[in-house]
């Protein structure tokens, strides 16, 4: 007799429309985001610190940390070669999650005066 498996934890649901103000990023994730963002902007200065902190605040309001981690993984792993890489390209949520992150970051760029403003 097959025992009914005990399923623990919430099922991963496609909740790109996470509740606003989720703001549940751990400190490590916040610091990592800001440091990477500053490096991408070319220098570590107060200028980039303020803009990147602003960007993080915006993204963290738009997405839960778990969604952000999932979207970031989809974005990074998209080009994984070979048959296995298909799991990062083919599933419907791959594009949706990447798009949600792209949208949040585009809004953040505008709101935080990043790039050309």
């Amino acid at each position, binding site marked *: 007799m*097959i*025992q009914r*498996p*005990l*399923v*623990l*934890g*919430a*099922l*991963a*649901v*496609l909740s790109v429309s996470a509740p606003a103000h989720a703001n549940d990023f*751990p400190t*490590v*994730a916040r610091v*990592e985001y800001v440091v*990477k963002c500053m*490096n*991408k902007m070319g220098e570590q200065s107060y200028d980039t610190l303020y803009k990147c902190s602003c960007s993080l605040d915006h993204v963290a309001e738009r997405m839960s940390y*778990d969604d952000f*981690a*999932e979207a*970031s*993984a989809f*974005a*990074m*792993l*998209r*080009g*994984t*070669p*070979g*048959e*296995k890489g*298909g*799991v990062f390209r*083919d*599933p*419907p*949520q791959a594009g949706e999650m990447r798009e949600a992150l*792209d949208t949040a970051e585009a809004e953040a760029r505008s709101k935080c005066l990043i790039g050309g403003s």
Partner: protein
Amino acid sequence: MYKPLQSLAVLAACAVLPGAVIANDEVKSLTADANNWAIWGGDYAGTRYSELDQINAGNVKDLQVAWTFSTGVLRGHEGGPLVMGDTMYIHTPFPNKVFAINLADQTVKWSYEPKQNPDTIPVMCCDTVNRGLAFADGKVFLQQADTTLVALNADTGELVWSVKNGDPAKGETNTNAPVVINDKIVTGISGGEFGVRGFVVAYNIKDGSQAWKAYSTGPDDEMLIDPEKTTHLGQPVGGDSSLKTWEGDQWKIGGGTTWGWFTYDPETNLVYYGSGNPGTWNPVVRPGDNRWSMTLWARDADTGMAKWVYQMTPHDEWDYDGVNENILVDQEINGEMRKLLVHFDRNGFGYTLDRVTGELLVAEKYDPATNWASHIDMETGRPQVVAEYSTHQNGADVNSEGICPAALGSKDQQPAAYSPKTGLFYVPTNHVCMDYEPFEVEYVAGQPYVGATLSMYPAGKVTGDGSSNMGNFIAWDATKGEIVWSLPERFSVWSGALATAGDVVFYGTLEGHLKAVDSKTGKELYSFKTPSGIIGNVNTYTHDGKQYVAVLSGIGGWAGIGMAAGLEGDTEGLGAVGAYRKLSDYTQLGGVLTVFALPDGA
């Protein structure tokens, strides 16, 4: 039936040469000391279980990062480091660097970087990973991507000997971790997507001379199969058991590669491994059972002779490579203690066999979504294929939809763990299905010989249960073939698990989290985000009396591939590149070893 086989095994064990015992005993004593992590699976049986219990279910929540080590190499970091005494040995993907780290101060004692022809890269089907090192006889062994097997002086990193195991120009490459058994080192070959004819080979650890070589397909003598003595589910396989199951000379490009893990039982002197998919993914053009692809093998470690075989997926139609690890445990089934071999196949079935005789005891789905076969016939061992999901019956240029699992299997190479305290297996799994369309393809040496296009998506799309998770981390009872608990993960779980006497099980996720869960209930006790996705295997060891947990992160991704392949333009490479400009912005894609410990006094 059992008695003669057991006495044969005893004879085989006694036949070990006196000089041979040294390395074997060394590996056994190194792995018996839980302070070390001396072999990929923690022990020869591949249990990935540690007796260490300083870190336990009560205090694992207090874990902190003790130190990190960046390998400076992009691409996927599979496997995990070895630890012996005061030294840790870390390997990397292509170009296959090795670092010896002094654990006292985390400085590099020596490093090794082979010069390998970058032409090897494009003939590696699935990223240029490497699954790790072996140690014995004062040497560290590395199976390089270009098929060179090297023995390095463990103290200095100097090359002691090297031997070529294959030819990348024919599509032969290597990703596997070799294993030292007795006075030999056993290794395999990759390249099933290039029509490579798989084999396992043993070299003498003293000088790298070849001891034996056994193919997965072809004439009996080249497979080291004895038609009368080698058995399949208790019956002699008979003459030409492979040749009869291929059309013409197809066995010569028959696949059955051997890129997975090797385990070993010193009592029977048998080495266990699985062979991969048959050549070309298009099943229509290769009629027959395609033996012995997709097969579990038990071979005498000294002679290479096959004791038994079991083909799990005759005439593969889905790329369900049979290479996953075979974990050797002793457990009670129907009131009787049995010497078991437990294998979680890509095909979605968890198999429990008698590892001495090859008798099939349990074969059940460890992902309930598995639908390509209804069940395994326990008499014949054959899966009962569901016609709707048969890519052969549907034919070439027909898209078979909703097949579960996808080609990467319900589980790939990432090894499971076993805790003797709970009697449970902890299995990182995929929960992904696919559409599969075979097409005609001509074989050209060194060119991909795949012949199928596929598309993958969460299993929930097929089962209709509304879920979108692509992985589960499960606890499995191999004596009954039952899932005990199951943790949904958003991504497939591609990291190897670790179980400890502290009642904790560790695994990593593709988002990059190292997770610790309660071994009895699955309750999450700890989660920490490492720099990148984890496809490495979690290990544990002690240094100066303190327990550490270590795992490699780093999965590659296109940016890493672009940099490593020397691509400079924004739109070169694998497409979809415009969003990112500077590869150096994404240095977190590089491999990082993260080492965890409890604060003092915790």
